[in-house]
């Protein structure tokens, strides 16, 4: 069994992101471990707690959040990539904190750490 690090760069409106989620679930089901998932580029948008979907569609933001709750897999977010795309952890009046609590606010340094430690790195 191996330890994996995943990198997700696609948004919650892209079905490729669902592929990444099911891949992560399958890894765990097959007995592998995931030391962390790093969300970069448009992938950071998955952390926006204001993402909504009609009730008969998959809400990827919620799906990641549930996945984190069930598996305790760290979901890291590049805050610089996030701020460019309207995500904020600021508590100033002008902003409204919109990053879901199940995501860990990180930087690219975490990408280095995760990819360096893991046996396998998969970009999805």
């Amino acid at each position, binding site marked *: 069994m191996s330890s994996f690090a995943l990198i997700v760069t696609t948004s919650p409106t892209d*079905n*490729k992101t669902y*592929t990444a989620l099911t*891949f992560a679930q399958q*890894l765990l089901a097959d007995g*592998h471990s995931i030391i962390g998932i790093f969300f970069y580029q448009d992938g950071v948008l998955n952390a926006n707690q204001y993402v909504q979907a009609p009730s008969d569609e998959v809400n990827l933001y919620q799906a990641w959040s549930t996945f984190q709750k069930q598996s305790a897999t760290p979901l890291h977010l590049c805050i610089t990539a996030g701020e460019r795309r309207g995500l904020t952890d600021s508590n100033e009046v002008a902003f409204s904190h919109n990053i879901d609590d199940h995501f860990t606010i990180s930087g690219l340094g975490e990408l280095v750490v995760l990819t360096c430690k893991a046996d*396998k790195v998969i*970009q999805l």
Partner: protein
Amino acid sequence: MTILHIVRSSAFNDNKLELCLSIVTEHDSIFLIDDGVYNIAHPSLLKLLDRIEVFALTEHTNARALNIDNKKIRTADLSAFVALTDNAEKTITWQ
């Protein structure tokens, strides 16, 4: 020295498959997922089937109503995909 090339887009739309094929070696394998599964009918891929091992993700071909008649293209489910990423020395994602 094996690389698993994960191809996620259709070569009928962009050149990612072509880039992959320009550097793929005979020790490598190609795994088609997402819109990459449409490449099962692309001439550039068909040309290489005798030399390179090619897989397509069953869940994604089924979702897109694709039937694989070509015996040289192997089908694999998500769990088999996971196993292949684990066996490969490294992966490269073309998306």
